[in-house]
């Protein structure tokens, strides 16, 4: 076998990772390639293919992590990505990752892959959890029955990873193609269809038997491809045959203790998904998350602030030229520093969300909210996408690819920007901390609640006005609860938070310099370009009571929401007035205007990257303009209500 591996040294090997959602594909991908992709205990983490490189001895292998799929029927966009990759890219090996605790469903996908091609390896993952649950899997028997190599792995403990690497290299040149037989009637139909397909030269690149099976399952894409449409549907019979085959395999290769009563996950779910308690618990958890984000980060932010103040003083002392000192100290250190102060808030928010993901709570939240979402013509699947928006609206919109119903997907894309992303958090912390003191945490919590309310109401409105029809039903496997792993959570937090730091070093740095130039020229203060922009727009904002500084910061905030913070601190950091920029803000702005401003920041035009991803995902500028103008109108209306009501209280 060693010689076999050496013999393919010169060949470039490509391996595709497939599996049901949430079986640990990304964990295996990381283990094979040494990558640090985000892993989460919920389905749908991978929405597009990712490539990494695995090195083993003299071999270099491209490993492609495909989105999770239950079938190769490809009903949603992410499932189609997986199927198209197998068909068009023809990887050397298809590695199917199965869940050791729930092998039956994993084998269902495996059989479909085996119907399509040879060179398949099965990795039965989470073997440690299966053993804990009392299951014993005989990999030799499983391998014998399936006719392909089987490796037992645990991405958590690292068990079987080396064996898997070696098996993958060796399997790249075997070409076992397993077939099992359907009923006589189906087999006869398959033969007939195969003969018809054989005559079509344009289909010679495809496996005829696989195309025939798909035609019997009434697969729309295959019908279009072959030009053959049948008036009978054998999908149920085919599924039954597959399951019978799986049961036969499992009966001889898996031994487990008989399940009595509930396991821990079922017991927890009885309460967590309770029709009344479920929503209350969800609200309580979100409150705790946002309170922690606010309180724990407080001292850490002070430390960073002190460091930046010291840096500003030292660097300021080195530069003799006034304008250059102002650019470096006020523009660069002040502007970027105003954002860096909020790094602890962002990291703690992601840490808390990471814990919720890792434990497996988030899918439960989706389940609990599903009923409410259904009333708004959205499904729990949309909720999962929206939930990702608390991190970044861009990833939220991209994750809608897993929503199979096109109208529902479009509505989710259009309302996603209302979910309060982490970029807006620094603005909340700055303004709420300045104006609402000890109640700042509660104000931030209410902003998050408001973002959910506006999202849901907008979904309802858009559905009512433009789309008719029912949302897709939420069919989602609730993953097992897991004790969160520190490394996994740290990786999650770093991967998400790093994006914020990268922005601080690029777009925010550039924006800070631009803002400084606009504030300093032609004359500093009210004669500056920034003031001109703000004052030109001021008449539009008279009902809201915003000053030119606030208006200009909103304009700059369209580039990235964090820029609002650096803009405000630059504009209000007037050296002619004593006190910090925050003190100055407090003297100029009343609390109800501050709250109204926060609401406006929450709801107004999405940032540039979000608008760009809306264009990419919808393929139309029409929806980009709709999103921008609709959100602006909603922001203005709600902010005005807040200002008026706040003024009356």
């Amino acid at each position: 076998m060693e010689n076999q591996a050496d013999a393919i040294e010169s060949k470039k090997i490509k391996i595709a990772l497939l599996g049901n959602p949430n079986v640990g594909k990304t964990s295996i991908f990381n283990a094979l390639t040494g990558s640090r992709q985000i892993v989460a205990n919920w389905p749908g983490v991978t929405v597009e293919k990712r490539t990494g490189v695995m090195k083993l001895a003299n071999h270099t292998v491209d490993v492609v992590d495909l989105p999770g799929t239950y079938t190769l029927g490809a009903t949603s966009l992410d499932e189609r990505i997986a199927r198209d990759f197998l068909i068009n890219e023809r990887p050397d090996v298809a590695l199917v990752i199965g869940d050791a605790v729930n092998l039956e469903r994993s084998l269902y996908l495996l059989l479909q892959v085996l119907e399509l091609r040879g060179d398949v390896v099965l990795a039965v993952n989470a073997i440690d959890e299966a053993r804990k649950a009392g299951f014993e899997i005989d990999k030799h028997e499983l391998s014998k029955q399936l006719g392909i190599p089987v490796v037992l792995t645990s991405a958590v403990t690292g068990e079987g990873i080396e064996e898997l690497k070696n098996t993958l290299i060796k399997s790249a040149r075997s070409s076992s193609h397993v077939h099992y037989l359907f009923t006589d009637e189906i087999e006869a139909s398959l033969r007939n269809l195969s003969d018809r397909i054989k005559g079509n030269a344009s289909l010679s690149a495809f496996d005829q038997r696989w195309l025939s099976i798909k035609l019997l399952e009434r697969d729309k894409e295959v019908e279009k491809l072959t030009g053959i449409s049948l008036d009978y549907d054998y999908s149920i019979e085919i599924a039954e045959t597959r399951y019978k085959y799986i049961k036969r395999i499992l009966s001889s290769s898996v031994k487990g203790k008989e399940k009595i009563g509930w396991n821990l996950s079922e017991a927890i779910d009885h309460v967590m998904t309770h029709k009344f308690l479920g929503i209350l618990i969800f609200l309580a958890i979100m409150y705790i998350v946002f309170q922690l984000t606010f309180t724990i980060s407080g001292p850490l932010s002070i430390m960073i602030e002190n460091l930046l103040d010291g840096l500003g003083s030292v660097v300021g002392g080195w530069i003799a030229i006034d304008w250059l000192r102002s650019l470096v100290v006020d523009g660069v250190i002040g502007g970027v520093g105003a954002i860096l102060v909020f790094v602890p808030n962002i990291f703690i928010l992601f840490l808390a969300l990471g814990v919720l993901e890792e434990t497996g709570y988030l899918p439960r939240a989706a389940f609990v909210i599903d009923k409410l979402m259904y009333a708004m013509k959205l499904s729990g699947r949309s909720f999962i996408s929206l939930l990702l928006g608390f991190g970044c609206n861009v990833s939220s919109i991209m994750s809608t690819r897993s929503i199979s119903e096109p109208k529902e997907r479009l509505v989710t894309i259009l309302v996603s920007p209302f979910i309060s992303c982490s970029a807006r958090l620094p603005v909340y912390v700055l303004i709420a901390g300045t104006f609402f003191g000890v109640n700042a945490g509660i104000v931030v919590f209410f902003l998050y609640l408001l973002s959910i309310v506006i999202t849901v109401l907008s979904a309802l409105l858009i559905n009512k006005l433009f789309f008719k029809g029912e949302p897709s039903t939420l069919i989602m496997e609730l993953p097992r609860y897991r004790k969160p792993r520190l490394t996994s959570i740290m990786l999650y937090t770093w991967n998400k938070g790093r994006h914020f730091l990268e922005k601080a070093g690029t777009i925010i740095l550039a924006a800070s310099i631009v803002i400084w130039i606009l504030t300093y020229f032609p004359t500093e203060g009210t004669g500056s370009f920034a003031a001109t922009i703000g004052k030109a727009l001021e008449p539009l904002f008279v009902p809201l009571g915003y000053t030119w500084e606030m208006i200009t910061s909103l304009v700059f905030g369209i580039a990235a929401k964090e820029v609002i913070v650096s803009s405000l601190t630059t504009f209000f950091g007037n050296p002619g007035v004593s006190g910090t920029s925050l003190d100055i803000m407090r003297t100029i702005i009343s609390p109800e205007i501050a709250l109204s401003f926060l609401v406006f920041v929450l709801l107004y035009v999405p940032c540039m990257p979000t608008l760009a991803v809306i264009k990419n995902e919808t393929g139309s500028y029409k929806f980009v303009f709709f999103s921008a103008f609709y959100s602006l109108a909603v922001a203005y209306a709600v902010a005005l209500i807040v200002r008026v009501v706040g003024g009356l209280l």
Partner: protein
Amino acid sequence: MKERVITFWLLFGGTLLATLSVNSFFGLLLTKREPFLAMIAGINSAIYFLGLAEKRSDLRKRYSHLLVGSFFSYVLSIYQVLVLFSIWLEGLLTSTCLLAFDEMNLPLIISGFALSFLFDFAKKQFETNNL
């Protein structure tokens, strides 16, 4: 655990958290007024009390309320400790002592840690497949 004993613990947990909720809401004993924390404690209390609404004969459903309720109490006490830690750290950085007895909400912290033993017990019942 017998049915009557589970009923006792559900009643005990529910009443304790309801009392702590009222305490936090009005800021009565060793705590400042914290209406939102009071609401969270109220939800925790409801987890226990709704366990009593389950059929007496269905022990596993009652146990699951005890399991989640006691874990939630434990999480609340950890949350409170984290808040205290950050207040202490902030005081350290600004050279002022910000900690006060009222900030601590000691009854909530102590109850949460005490109820964690109940959580451990309930967890074992499910892990050993007794239910």
